[in-house]
């Protein structure tokens, strides 16, 4: 970016230790030796560790301020009290907050107009992965940020092998918004770090013998080292701290262990490799508005969203999601998802007199809200193992319905679920869970109605993510993975059934669609 306003592009870089480095581009197009930026008292700027800086005039006073994302301590603004050519950076960085006063977190913070409303929003990465978006509810000159919404979900850690391709961004995500394909929509670039593991071939006889030869000495040194660690730790927090002779004993034990520790590491059969990938998420144009819910084909509108309400009880979790299907119509798709731990089930049907309570959602609609489509179960049930001509759900069950918002409401839109959760031995008492979608409010700047809990959720937010080519789709030349899946006749099919033949795998969104 042009930091010194001389018409060329300079480089501003964060660092692991937390200083902000500035590499000035000279008239000849070369970069000067980097120097770190100092605050108004001459000390290096510091807001945390593993930082990323962005220079932007956040307070509209004509100079550049700094927005700094830190590894785990949050997002900060360093205000410039000077001018663009002679900056004077505040000594104390200011933590960025949402409109409601919540601290904003992010391993990297980037300003861009994500939803195309002409205002700069804040998009943040995270030490733990995923990408979130704080919509700007104010003006560019006076930004006011909404609570975070998930753009890319954080993925749970899973150990993957080096021979597999990564399936999505890992941790320490860094984000940048750009119109990658020039279609006028904001796309997302996400950088990450992740580790893939490799299992090395088994040790040879000779290697096993060498390992066995040093193992007793290693174990003895390891034991001695553990004793010294214990001894050192016992002084932590004590007045006077750790005595010098205790530290010396610890260091001696550590030094003695190191050479053998290194030798033993060579025999370890698991090796990790650090990777940094760049992921591209392309935005697709929003669905044409005015369609009814039923007209939207499966697979075209997958909202990346967080639950509006959630309730956990024992082995089960109920989550309520809602997303507008179209803006003009004020039509909202409500999804109720029950997730059950392994071995637990909820009844779909139960014979009368059995005492089991089937899962049944209902609505408590205030005036001004109409049911556009009644509840429908989107999941398959299975015959109950108890054999009593009952059916139940395992794993996950989803019910959906559509609501039409007609007027602002004084009461909240309520969802009730009758439910009983059982495993093979016991049943939890039947329960009625009440969740709320919040009130219906009229947006201040327009005639549009929305659910208050869906602050800032726009139809543009309903996007289909396309994984970047070549990064997560199985590359040509890879070994085809094995499978064992049931076909439409109930026959188990394996990849090995097709060995020696060329076969084709066609992923289609849903049975009954044109593919």
């Amino acid at each position, binding site marked *: 970016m042009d930091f010194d306003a001389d018409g060329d592009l300079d480089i501003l870089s964060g660092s692991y230790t937390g200083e902000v480095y500035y590499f000035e581009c000279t008239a000849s197009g070369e970069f000067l030796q980097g120097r770190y930026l100092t605050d108004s008292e001459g000390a290096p700027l510091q807001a945390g560790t593993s930082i990323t800086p962005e220079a932007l005039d956040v307070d509209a006073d004509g100079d550049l301020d700094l927005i700094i994302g830190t590894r785990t301590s949050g997002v900060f603004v360093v205000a410039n009290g000077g001018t663009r050519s002679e900056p004077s950076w505040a000594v104390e960085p200011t933590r960025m907050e949402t409109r409601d006063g919540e601290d904003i977190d992010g391993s990297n913070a980037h300003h861009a107009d994500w939803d195309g409303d002409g205002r700069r929003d804040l998009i943040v990465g995270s030490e733990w992965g995923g990408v979130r978006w704080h919509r700007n509810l104010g003006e560019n000159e006076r930004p006011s940020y909404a609570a975070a919404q998930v753009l890319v979900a954080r993925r749970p850690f899973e150990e993957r092998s080096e021979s597999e391709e990564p399936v999505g961004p890992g941790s320490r995500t860094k984000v940048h918004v750009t119109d990658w394909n020039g279609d006028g929509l904001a796309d997302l670039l996400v950088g990450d770090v992740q580790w893939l593991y490799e299992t090395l071939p088994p040790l040879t006889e000779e290697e096993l013998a060498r390992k066995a030869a040093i193992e007793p000495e290693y174990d003895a040194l390891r034991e001695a080292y553990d004793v010294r660690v214990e001894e050192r730790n016992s002084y932590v927090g004590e007045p006077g701290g750790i005595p010098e002779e205790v530290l010396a004993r610890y260091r001696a034990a550590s030094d003695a262990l190191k050479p053998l520790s290194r030798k033993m590491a060579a025999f370890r059969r698991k090796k990790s490799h650090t990777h940094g990938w760049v992921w591209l998420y392309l935005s697709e144009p929003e669905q044409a508005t005015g369609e009814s819910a039923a007209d939207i084909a499966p697979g075209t509108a997958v909202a990346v969203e967080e639950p509006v309400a959630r309730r956990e009880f024992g082995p089960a979790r109920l989550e309520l999601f809602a997303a507008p299907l179209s803006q003009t119509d004020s039509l909202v798709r409500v999804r109720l998802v029950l997730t059950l731990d392994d071995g637990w089930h909820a009844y779909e049907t139960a014979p009368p007199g059995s005492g089991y309570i089937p899962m049944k959602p209902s609505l408590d609609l205030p005036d001004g809200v109409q049911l556009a489509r009644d509840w429908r179960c989107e999941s398959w049930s299975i015959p109950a193992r108890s054999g009593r001509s009952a059916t139940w759900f395992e794993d996950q069950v989803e019910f959906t319905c559509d609501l039409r918002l007609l007027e602002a409401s004084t009461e909240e839109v309520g969802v009730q679920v009758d439910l009983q959760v059982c495993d093979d031995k016991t049943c939890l008492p039947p329960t009625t869970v009440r969740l709320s979608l919040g009130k219906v409010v009229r947006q201040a700047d327009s005639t549009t109605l929305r659910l208050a809990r869906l602050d800032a959720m726009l139809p543009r937010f309903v996007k289909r993510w396309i994984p970047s080519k070549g990064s997560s789709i199985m590359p040509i030349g890879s070994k085809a993975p094995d*499978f064992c899946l049931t076909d439409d006749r109930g026959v188990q099919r394996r990849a090995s059934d097709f060995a020696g033949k060329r076969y084709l795998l066609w992923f289609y969104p849903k049975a009954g669609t044109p593919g």
Partner: protein
Amino acid sequence: MSFDSPEANRAFAEKHDFAFPLLSDEKRGLAMAYGACEEAGARFPARLTFIISPEGVVEQAIETSDPAGQAQAILDSIY
């Protein structure tokens, strides 16, 4: 190959009299392996088609943009 149950696929196959099996990947394991979805909670797989050689190696990976026209294009590429 979809996330539908074998029952739903059966109805689909009977309606159109398909001459090939429809596999049910309800756990999303194969779709994730092939990059057709990101996570086990994905609602639908991406429209992707793979051709696997007699040696068990991925020969072609196609992002389907025209489901109707794709079948002929694939046949042309094989024969």
